[in-house]
């Protein structure tokens, strides 16, 4: 009994926490009379969301799609560059500082240039999502490879395996936990990237919706947009968490196995 109760708690902890936070948020908004144009209460956000359900969904799809495309490119590029950086010291030395510098720059600054080259809308959003999110993948893959235990590598080397074989058979599997950790960060950044690009130049997407809503001071709708992004982020995260569980069971065998 007690055991099941605990399990139930753990399973639903997330919902309960969310409900709790929404409740607190509502109470604060109502209690302190926080003006709606500043920080709308969840109830206001909810009714705004319901009232504009269809346009919100339409914009959400656009954002979801661009984000996924940008993210997919980021994963591929991050993996390839991460492998290069983690494998070849010269690439590491040459590329890493440059990438760090590049990544410290807010990507919004490039959107205007992208707009001029690719027109407003989907392409700049995809590219921004890509530019903002490939770096964590790269860093984590490179670190995973560089911290590979040489003993495991020796197993493959003793078989006369090529560098590529070693990468495929031990490097990448060993770097998988790092990789999945980075996906969780990268997907959230990808959403940020596409939304930001949409706020700067697009007629579509949640970013546009938020811009439009805030220009008519409809903060409840802005927050509805924010929450839709958050929900999409969580959905993607759950997907990765599921994949991670499948693919890195070996690494998560400890007492905290259930944890990450």
């Amino acid at each position, binding site marked *: 009994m007690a055991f099941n109760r605990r399990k139930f708690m753990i399973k639903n902890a997330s919902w309960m926490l969310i409900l709790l936070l929404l409740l607190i948020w509502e109470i604060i908004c109502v209690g302190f009379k926080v003006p709606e144009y500043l920080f709308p209460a969840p109830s206001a956000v909810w009714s705004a969301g319901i009232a504009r359900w269809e346009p919100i969904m339409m914009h959400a799809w656009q954002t979801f799609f661009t984000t996924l495309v940008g993210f997919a490119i980021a994963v591929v590029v991050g993996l390839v560059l991460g492998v290069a950086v983690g494998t070849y010291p010269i690439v590491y030395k040459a590329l890493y500082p440059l990438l760090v510098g590049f990544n410290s720059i807010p990507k919004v600054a490039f959107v205007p240039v992208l707009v001029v080259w690719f027109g407003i809308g989907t392409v700049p959003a995809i590219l921004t999502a890509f530019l903002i999110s490939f770096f964590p993948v790269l860093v984590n893959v490179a670190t995973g490879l560089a911290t590979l235990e040489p003993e495991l590598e020796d*197993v493959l080397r003793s*078989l*006369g*395996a090529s560098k590529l074989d070693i990468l495929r058979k031990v490097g990448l599997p060993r770097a998988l936990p790092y990789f999945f950790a980075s996906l969780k960060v990268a997907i959230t950044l990808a959403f940020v990237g596409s939304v930001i690009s949409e706020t700067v130049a697009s007629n579509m997407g949640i970013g546009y919706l938020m811009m439009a809503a805030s220009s008519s001071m409809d903060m409840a709708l802005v927050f509805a947009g924010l929450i839709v992004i958050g929900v999409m982020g969580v959905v993607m995260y759950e997907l990765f968490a599921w994949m991670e569980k499948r693919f890195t069971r*070996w690494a998560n065998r400890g007492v905290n196995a259930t944890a990450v």
Partner: protein
Amino acid sequence: MAFVKFEEVSLAYEEGGALAIKDISLSVQQNEFIAVVGPSGCGKSTLMKLVSGLSEPTSGYVYIDGRQIGGPQKCIGMAFQASNLLPWRTTLENVMLPLEIVQPYRSQLRRKRKEFEAMAMELIERVGLKGWEHKYPWELSGGMQQRASICRALIHKPQLLMLDEPFGALDAFTREELWCMLQDLWQEQPFTVILVTHDLREAVFLADTVYVMSKGPGQILVKRDIAIERPRTLAVTYSEPFAAQVHVLREHIGSIRKS
């Protein structure tokens, strides 16, 4: 011509640091079975790394099959001292690993997967791991891991088999069983073996030649031929000549320690 040849080989792990092994010269004939014994830390594992091309000598030369070694070799099977199983693979997958790397298995793998799996299963059964083939390494006991690692060294029928204390974590009976299995395999279809061990009986039972190394920096002090007839049975180990051989080796090692 010697299959494996060391010419005055020395190795220091750190540039300019202490030598791990010093001026080792030896040669192993094709299909010879040699054993290397010596005190802990004398450089036996280092020697193995040199043969397999995992380390490069600081001075001297290592040849395999007449060619100087310039990196990892393709015809080698190696069981490491620590089993080094890949934790994301099951026992069977770990054992199959060499078949994914080494030719000609590699290119046949897709077609013949079933057949190769049967091969792997046979080996796994032979070392007594039947029923554990779908377990992950951390679900195996220490000795089981070691046996899985032996299978992985054997599966691709390497020309040169290198075993670094392969039976250290096994009880006496399992160990003796595996001695016999190894000898059988070797006699069915000969290959060259380099065995590192602390068990002198093991060395005498299995090897044609036993090398005794000095304590670090490791040098070869004694080379001893074991002229006991093949196939050797476990009964032989209780025989007088066998005991004598073991005793002589023991004396050698004892005298090294005192020096």
